């Protein structure tokens, strides 16, 4: 029997709420079927099952919030005989042939009052403050109230919000972040929750991972020329953006330098699939990092099609669990008007993140002469426990090689 557990959809995820079961007991499950919708800080995620079997039992109810790792469902693998279902964590059901005394004892147990004799203290909080606390997923038992009768009021929530870990906003476009101030209406709850999730992950990353940084300026004239020609032959819906080129080039470079396509969990563990996560900034602030799975096996057009599918879904909070949890390496790109280059913060447990700055014209030296060429500043932030400058340098060199030969991608 397969115990299907609440997956972790991000390094900082602690729990999720099961919103809706998409399959019912008795349904035959195939690889990739969506089992349920789960609500996390990152929005509503579709949870996929990657085996084959029959859903035997749902162990968590719709609306229930459970920690990561909780068994959500039992699935009987195809071919296995129907066995006696033994729920792993629940209290044992009284056996039918039990001695008469036992069932009574079992019944009494839940009915008896809690051992603690003192009344659990009710927290006084104004309706508005409670609403705000829920929106920001705050633990109100930790907040001191300054309202009447010691109640927690709006000012107390606001004070606590101001104390929360200041965001490490290195990764995404600066102006996306600044939008928080001018927007007149209150930020939507999801975007606040996402911000918190990002903040938590980024702080953890900076605390745990010893980052080292390398940068290289790469000539983009060949790549852009190739893109221009390629787009002439494509309809507007199929047009390729430079980011698709970057994704393919990174995937190929990772093939050459596999130590960067890995995770650090008590040691370096290389990954077989190259799933490239890329940072999507949300219009109301915050980021999501969906992945393009098996990017090395996809053609450039397939990568572009993938982007066209994933980015709108990321912005609409409609991503699938596999898209959020399976990145092996991440790309961040700063685009126009942002910075010249971007130094990323590694998303644990990955071991590297590459940043692409703005593609712009600069003076370069070529064969002893100065010319104007489109260039891009590429940075690599990597985990020094996993790799060192030599490996990082090899990666950037490989990446450059591919960007100079776009036809090979």
């Amino acid at each position, binding site marked *: 029997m397969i115990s299907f557990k609440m997956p972790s959809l991000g390094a900082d995820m602690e729990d999720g709420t099961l919103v809706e079961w998409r399959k019912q007991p008795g349904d035959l499950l195939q690889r990739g079927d969506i089992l349920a919708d789960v609500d996390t800080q990152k929005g509503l995620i579709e949870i996929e099952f990657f085996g084959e079997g029959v859903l035997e039992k749902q162990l968590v109810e719709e609306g229930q919030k459970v920690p990561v790792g909780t068994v959500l469902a039992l699935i009987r693998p195809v071919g296995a005989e129907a066995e006696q279902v033994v729920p792993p964590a629940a209290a044992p059901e009284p056996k039918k042939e039990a001695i008469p005394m036992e069932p009574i004892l079992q019944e009494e147990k839940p009915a008896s009052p809690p051992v603690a004799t003192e009344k659990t203290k009710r927290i006084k909080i104004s309706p508005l403050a409670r609403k705000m606390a829920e929106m920001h997923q705050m633990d109100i038992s930790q907040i001191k109230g300054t309202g009447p009768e010691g109640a927690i009021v709006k000012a107390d929530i606001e004070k606590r919000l101001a104390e929360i870990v200041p965001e490490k906003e290195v990764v995404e476009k600066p102006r996306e972040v600044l939008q928080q101030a001018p927007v007149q209406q209150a930020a939507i709850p999801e975007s606040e929750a996402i911000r918190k999730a990002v903040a938590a992950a980024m702080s953890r990353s900076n605390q745990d991972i010893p980052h080292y940084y390398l940068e290289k300026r790469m000539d983009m004239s060949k790549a852009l020329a190739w893109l*221009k020609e390629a787009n002439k032959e494509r309809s*507007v*819906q199929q*047009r390729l953006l430079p980011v698709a080129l970057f994704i393919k080039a990174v995937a190929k470079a990772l093939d050459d330098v596999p130590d960067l396509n890995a995770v650090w969990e008590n040691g370096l563990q290389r990954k077989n699939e190259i799933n490239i996560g890329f940072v999507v900034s949300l219009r109301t602030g915050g980021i999501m990092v969906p992945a393009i799975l098996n990017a090395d096996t996809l053609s450039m057009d397939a990568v572009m099609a993938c982007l066209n599918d994933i980015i*709108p879904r990321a912005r609409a909070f409609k991503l699938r669990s596999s898209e959020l949890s399976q990145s092996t390496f991440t790309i961040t790109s700063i685009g126009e008007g942002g910075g010249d280059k971007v130094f990323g913060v590694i998303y644990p447990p990955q071991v590297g993140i590459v940043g692409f700055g703005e593609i712009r014209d600069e003076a370069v030296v070529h064969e002893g002469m100065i010319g104007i060429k489109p260039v891009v500043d590429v940075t690599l932030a990597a985990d020094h426990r996993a790799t060192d400058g030599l490996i990082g340098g090899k990666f950037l060199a490989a990446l450059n090689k591919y960007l100079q030969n776009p036809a090979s991608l």
Partner: protein
Amino acid sequence: MNEATIKTTIFQLLKRIAPENDPSTLMPDENIREALNIDSFDALQFIVAISEKLNVDIPEEDYGKTATLKSLMAYLQQKIKH
């Protein structure tokens, strides 16, 4: 197609891409992408949507002509005529 209809279509599609900004506040010479905070991906979506809706082809080399509201309108009007 008259100027007003083109403008309405442009605003509709811009609103779809950047729902929290009001395209009608755009000045004629303002850079649309900067003013409405539209990145390269969204910009491509906008070009795709405009081409489909107004049935015009906008090749990559013409992107520069679509940067401001004024130039975009002029460009589209000219394209639609032929």
